[in-house]
C-alpha cells in the first residue's frame, strides 16, 4: 500500500447544478471532490460527466457508505464497485467517514456516530485494514459531526482518530466545521480537539456551513461562518499547506459564490502559513 503525498490546493465539491460550469468553462480550482456513490453505477451519463471533469481536474472520491464502524462487517459489493471507480478515475485519494451506516439488515443513509470504546476502535481498525487491502491503497477518514454521545464512551474522539490513524496507516480528512458542530453539541473545546490530532496525518480539510440551534446541525446549506473560518485559520497555521475545499449540498448557490468562499480560504491560508 502506498502513502499519500500532500497536495496543496483548493477545491470544490462537484454538484449537478454546476456540471455545465465544469464541463464548458475553465473553473479556477486545483481539484474537484465528488461523492463516490453517485458514480458507482454500471454506466450512462454520470460516468461520462465524471470522466470529462477528470480530464480537466484532479478528482477526489469522497464516500458516505463504506461504514467502517459497522460491527456487522464490510459490504463486499460496495468495495468492489468503489475499486472499479478508483481504477477508472485514478483519484488523488479516496475518503470516507468515521461512522457506521448499516447493520446486518438495513442502511441508514446517514453518518451514524460510534460509541468511542476500545471495542469500536478494534472494529474500525479491522474494517479499515480490509478496505485498504481490497482497494490496494490507503484512505482518508473524516471526523463526523455528531448529535449524541454514548454513555459507554471511553475516550475522546480525537484520541480515537489518532489511534485509528496510528494503527491502520490511514490519513485524516479534517472537517473543521464538524469539529465546531460537535464541540458546540457536546461541550468540548474545538481547539483541544485540533491540538489532540496527529496533524501530520491530515491530507485534506473540509469547510462548510451549519444550522445553529439547541442542537447544531451540519446542514451544508449556507456559507462558512466566522467561528469556523477562525478555527480553519488556527488549524492551517499548524498543519501548513493542505488541500482545502468548501462543501455545499443544499441551497446550492451559483458557482461564483462558492469560488468567492474558496478565495477567502486561499487568502486565510496564505496569511496564516506565511505568519
Amino acid at each position, binding site marked *: 500500500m502506498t502513502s499519500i503525498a500532500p497536495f496543496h490546493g483548493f477545491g470544490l465539491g462537484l454538484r449537478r447544478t454546476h456540471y455545465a460550469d465544469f464541463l464548458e468553462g475553465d473553473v479556477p480550482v486545483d481539484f474537484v471532490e465528488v461523492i463516490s*456513490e453517485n458514480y*458507482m*453505477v*454500471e*454506466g*450512462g*451519463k*454520470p460516468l*461520462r460527466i465524471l470522466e470529462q471533469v477528470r480530464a480537466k481536474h484532479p478528482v477526489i472520491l469522497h464516500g458516505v*457508505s463504506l*461504514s467502517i464502524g*459497522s*460491527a*456487522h462487517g464490510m*459490504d463486499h*459489493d*460496495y468495495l468492489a464497485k468503489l475499486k472499479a471507480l478508483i481504477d477508472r478515475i485514478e483519484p488523488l485519494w479516496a475518503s470516507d467517514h468515521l461512522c*457506521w*451506516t*448499516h*447493520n*446486518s*439488515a*438495513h*442502511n*441508514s*443513509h*446517514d453518518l*451514524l456516530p*460510534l*460509541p468511542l*470504546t476500545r*471495542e*469500536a476502535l478494534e*472494529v474500525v481498525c479491522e474494517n479499515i485494514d480490509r478496505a485498504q487491502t481490497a482497494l490496494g491503497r490507503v484512505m482518508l477518514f473524516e471526523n463526523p459531526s*455528531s*448529535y*449524541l454521545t*454514548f*454513555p*459507554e464512551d471511553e475516550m475522546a474522539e480525537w484520541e480515537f482518530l489518532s489511534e485509528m490513524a496510528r494503527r491502520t496507516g490511514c490519513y485524516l480528512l479534517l472537517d473543521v466545521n464538524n469539529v465546531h458542530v460537535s464541540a458546540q*453539541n457536546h461541550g468540548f473545546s474545538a481547539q483541544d480537539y485540533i491540538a489532540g490530532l496527529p496533524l501530520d496525518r491530515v491530507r485534506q480539510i473540509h469547510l462548510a456551513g451549519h444550522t445553529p440551534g*439547541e*442542537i447544531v*446541525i451540519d446542514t451544508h446549506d449556507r456559507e462558512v461562518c466566522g467561528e469556523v473560518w477562525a478555527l480553519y485559520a488556527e488549524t492551517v497555521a499548524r498543519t501548513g499547506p493542505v488541500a482545502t475545499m468548501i462543501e455545499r449540498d443544499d441551497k446550492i448557490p451559483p458557482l461564483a459564490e462558492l469560488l468567492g468562499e474558496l478565495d477567502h480560504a486561499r487568502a486565510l491560508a496564505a496569511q496564516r502559513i506565511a505568519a
Partner: protein
Amino acid sequence: MSALAQVQDAMLARILDEDLPLLPGWTPRHAAGLAVYRNNYRSALVEALRSTFERTARLVGEDSFERAAAHHVITHPPTSWTLDLAGEGFDATCAQLFAQDPEVAELAWLEWAMHRAFVARDAARLDGAGFAAATASYGDADWAGLRLRFVPGIALRTLRHDVKRLWSDRDAHLLEEVACCIVWREGERPVFQQVPLPEGEALSAMERGASFAEACELLSGLLGEDEAPAAAGAMLARWLAEGLVETLAQ
C-alpha cells in the same frame, strides 16, 4: 453478538421506529440527538423518492406524495448502500395506496424504469446491418433457435393508460386496449415507447429467453396465422432500428 453490534442494532431500530423506548441509560438529550438522525434518515429517503418520482409527485399532489413516500420508507426500509435503489417497489406502494387511480402506479413504474435505465451498463447495439451480417449464413434450424440479448436496463409492462400523455401532461387517458410500455436507453437518454400488447408479450418472452420461433408462435396465437409472420418481421426490424438489441444470444 458483540456489544457494539447490539448498540448499533438498537440504535438503527429506534431510528426506523420512533415508538420504541429509549435505550437504558439514555436521557432526553440522547432522545433529541436521536431525533436529528431519524429526521436525516427520513428526509434523505423521501427526498430521493421525490427526485426519482417527480412526475408522480406532480400527478398526486405534494401532500399525497409526501404521505406515500413516508409510508414507503416505513414499509420498505433500505437494505442497499445506494440511495439509487430507495425507490424500488414504490410503484407497488402506489398501486396499494392509490388503488382507485391505477395511472399513479403506472407512472411511478415508468419513472422507476427510466431511472434504472439511466445508469444501466453501457453496451453496443446490434443494428439491421449487423444483424444481417450475423445471420447471413443461417439455415432453417438456426432461425428456429434465434435468440436475442436485449440492451441493459430494458424494462416493460402492460399499461391501461396512454403513457405519453401521462408522462408529458399528467393526463390519465384510458386506452381503448391494454398496451405495453418498453423502456430502454438511447445513448445517454432513457426513452420509452408504447406498443401493442402482442408485440409487448413477444418481447417479454424473448427477454426471458424464448426463441424467435417461440415468439412467432405466441404472435400466431394472438394475431392469427395470416397476420403473425409479417408482424414478427416488422417487430424485429423495429427492435433493431431502435437499438433494443445488444447482440444475438448464444
